[in-house]
């Protein structure tokens, strides 16, 4: 391997978001020691840190800028992703404050973990070197293992953490093995060098390289929870504290997709005939298993877990299309997905109380007539997830399907739209409970301000991206 750090290519300005966020994360750790039980300060510091990170991401001009021997890049994709990450982490923190208080989660490292996880996500989205990608994935995963199990006294939370850790470690093994094989057969871990090497026709039939590719797909497939590597998702989503569930179904997933997209669109476009079919099968399976699985669920968090599997299936189409339009579509999709998901989990949190989470769909019976605004917001999120206009989910799907059709993936798109139709069934099931059934018990909703704020942000984002998407589309499609 070549030396990773050649002195002249160290570029701290490009690395600014990572550095800023790391500093803030450590600051949070230290403040936790001094601040005692006052968690407001930690939250405030974290939010400021995330804001600073988002700003510092734009420090580098002009883009795209490659540094650290072409292993770290500031480009359009990474900038937009950093915005999504900081936004989703900020929303996750806002969701957590009142939830943690209610459920008695006092750990100060909670916020630090979210920040460190975000650091990993930024690395993932900005890396153009396999080693860096691996580092990013590990940082993200380890933080998530802890976060999933942070409710130490709850056996579901423990189960989630353990399951996630065991399977995750296994998948990381696959990923690393894949990287090794790719390195072994191409002689480099750098995506551009690999791409250069793969142009050579004799490399394209190298069984070791192809094997490595398959292992990479398995590793990434696990991280984005696509079928058949999805088994962990429902249990972990259900067991993890709700804000963490929301967080990990947006940020880390988006980061994994960013890396997934980068690796396959930048390093292996030449090999696309060999991986396109495999990814298509995974995408189709994810859609079907996710949607059909979600139909069976009565627990809302499990339903959302399966729905997120199906969304992974849709998003995989962007990786398969691998055009510049596809990358913009991926960005737009992840952003709108962030708004919808945080909004919906915000409502899930609001409906719960200490000890009783009220996660069954039947707990939502008659909600529309007791709390019409909450029910309407929930309806908006659900319909948007299904892809109904005029909400963000529709524009996102339109974007994604457009990218796929442009690349001639017509069959895949037809399967995807049929799946969208299936998905309406279970999204509407919640609407049925909220609007068409009588309440079963008295609602004891805790209308806490910060959670409400997150829901409001979700609603505004979902509607705004659905009706006036022009500005964001222009940003996403450079």
């Amino acid at each position, binding site marked *: 391997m070549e030396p990773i750090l050649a002195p002249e290519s160290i570029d701290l300005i490009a690395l600014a978001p990572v550095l800023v966020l790391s500093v803030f994360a450590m600051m949070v750790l230290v403040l936790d020691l001094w601040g005692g039980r006052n968690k407001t300060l930690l939250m405030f510091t974290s939010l400021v840190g995330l804001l600073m990170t988002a700003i510092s991401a734009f420090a580098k001009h002009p883009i795209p800028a490659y540094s650290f021997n072409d292993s770290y890049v500031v480009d359009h994709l990474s900038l937009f992703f950093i915005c999504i990450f900081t936004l989703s982490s900020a929303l996750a923190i806002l969701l957590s404050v009142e939830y943690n208080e209610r459920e008695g989660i006092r750990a100060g490292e909670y916020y630090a973990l979210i920040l460190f996880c975000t650091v990993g996500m930024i690395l993932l989205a900005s890396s153009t070197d396999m080693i860096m990608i691996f580092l990013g994935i590990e940082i993200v995963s380890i933080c998530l293992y802890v976060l999933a199990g942070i409710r130490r006294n709850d056996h579901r939370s423990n189960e989630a953490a353990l399951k996630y850790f065991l399977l995750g470690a296994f998948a990381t093994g696959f990923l690393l093995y894949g990287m090794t094989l790719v390195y072994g057969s191409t002689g480099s871990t750098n995506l551009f060098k690999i791409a250069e090497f793969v142009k050579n026709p004799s490399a394209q039939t190298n069984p070791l390289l192809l094997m490595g590719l398959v292992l990479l797909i398995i590793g990434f497939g696990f991280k984005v929870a696509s079928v058949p590597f999805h088994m962990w998702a429902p249990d972990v989503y259900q067991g993890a504290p709700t804000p963490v569930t929301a967080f990990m179904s947006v940020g880390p997933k988006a980061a994994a997709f960013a890396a997934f997209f980068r690796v396959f669109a930048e390093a292996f476009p030449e090999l696309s005939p060999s991986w396109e079919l495999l990814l298509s099968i995974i995408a189709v399976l994810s859609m079907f298993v996710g949607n059909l699985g979600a139909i069976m669920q009565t627990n809302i968090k499990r339903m959302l877990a399966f729905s997120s599997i199906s969304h992974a299936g849709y998003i995989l189409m962007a990786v398969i299309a691998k055009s510049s339009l596809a990358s913009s579509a991926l960005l737009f999709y992840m952003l709108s997905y962030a708004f919808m998901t945080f909004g919906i989990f915000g409502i899930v949190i609001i409906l719960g109380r200490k000890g009783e989470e009220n996660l069954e769909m039947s707990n939502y019976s008659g909600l529309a007539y007791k709390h019409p605004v909450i029910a309407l917001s929930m309806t908006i999120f659900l319909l948007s997830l299904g892809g109904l206009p*005029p909400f963000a989910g529709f524009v996102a799907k339109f974007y994604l399907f457009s990218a796929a059709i442009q690349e001639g993936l017509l069959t895949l798109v037809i399967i995807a739209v049929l799946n969208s139709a299936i998905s309406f069934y279970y999204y509407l099931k919640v609407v049925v409970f909220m609007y068409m059934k009588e309440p079963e018990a008295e609602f004891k909703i805790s209308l806490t301000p910060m959670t409400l704020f997150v829901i409001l942000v979700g609603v505004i984002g979902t509607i705004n991206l659905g009706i006036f998407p*022009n500005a964001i589309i222009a940003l996403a499609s450079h």
Partner: protein
Amino acid sequence: MFLTFITFLPFVGAVFLAFMPKENENAIKQTAVAVALTDFLLSLLLWTNFDNTTHKMQFGLNIPWIEAWGINYHVGLDGISLLLYVMTTFLTLICIIASWDVKKHIREYMMAMLALSTGMLGVFIALDLFMFYVFWEFQLVPMYIIVGVWGGPRRIYASIKFFLFTAVGSLLMLVAIIWIYFHIQQTTGVATADILYITEHLDVSLDVQKWLWMAFFLAFAIKVPMFPFHTWLPDAHVEAPTAGSVILAGVLLKMGTYGFLRFNLPFFPQASYEFVPMVAWLAIIGIIYGALVAMVQEDLKKLVAYSSVSHLGFVMLGIFALNPYGIQGALIQNINHGISTGALFLLVGILYDRRHTRLITEFGGLAKIMPKYTICFMIAALSSIGLPGMNGFVGEFLVLLGIFQVNGLWAAFATSGVILAACYILWMFQRVMFLELKNPKNMELKDMNTRELITIVPLIVLIFWIGLYPKPFMNTFDASVTHLVSKVNPDNFRPHQEHKSDSHGEHTQLLTPNEMASLNHKLQMPNKVLIKE
């Protein structure tokens, strides 16, 4: 701007209602009526200001919406959409008045009604495919809620079925829309989803046309609904509250036929021509099957629902005659069906409100105790059959005239639908209104009250107006239909030449566009004939 204002006024009204106190039911109802009435009156202004002589879009507005994709907020009305637009505001008003006695969640009900109105109006004015799709899907939600919340016992099943059926069809249409978008971008270099631009510039081979045509067909055929995609309709109709059924029959189904006229025919003329036999046979099956099934129904509402399947078969047959008579007949029949079936649903609803049953066997002899009701019912029923002098006759006559020029056999089959309609409607009428007044529960039934008369009488006026003097209606879409036919079917060809001798001699030769003009001149003929009756 004016058009946009009228379209979104109901939605604004719905938002306004959201802030009214739930307890003050009367104020809520009055506000809803005021909004709907204003909207209707304003839409009448559109009609009076409409220029009949041109097929061009009027009251247009075209401003950028999603510039990055070249998608515009482009609206406008032409002869094909104008009447449907006015009918939408009209039926919304009628439905809101008819829903006066809704007990449950009246505020939410009125909000859903008004939001639905905006969704439907948007479908008819959209001149951008993206925008059309947005409205097309959006109006599903309020309708879904109306059926699901205020419907009958099986409302949840019916509402989800309604939603999913429509969603499957329209999502495939979405794929076709995206495909067209890229195709236009590649061939003309312009990124746009503008319907008028696409109509002008879409140039694809017949094979591709057929695929795209199928995608659009599926969306609209489910909506119409054509046999065999009709199974959602009886469920939705039976479970929906009265006003929901009226809107469903009056406007939502028309969105399907409108889609054929706006998209399938002008976008894919060759494919449309190729598919004429298929559509015609499906329509004929629908006409006869719908009528036969209607005949054996025990539930009044189900009977009317199946009669819808039959009536819409006529509309489809008229559209795919691909000649001026047929399309004019289809358009006028669109309106007729909204009026007479709407009236029938309202009347069935009135009976249901009193007796909480719709089984035909429960009734009998109502004529003796409900004379006003019986007269109204009779007029609506006869109009549905197509008695000369009433609106149904004008439409069915034109459709049959149009299809006869294409294929005499099809016309013969379709005519049998008219006869069957007379059977099921009159038989039902006899069993409900005449016979002996045996059932003691019916002895005390009250006749229609003033509010109910207010909802029915305008429809009856329209039934006779269109039946006796259809000219103002026909004139609105004359120019648009001529233009459409000249585009779709420039030769006004007859697919089945062997029937040449059967049809009207002078019309059977292949006509050049010039001769078309003279033919269109003759189109005024049926009107004049009818006026004399």
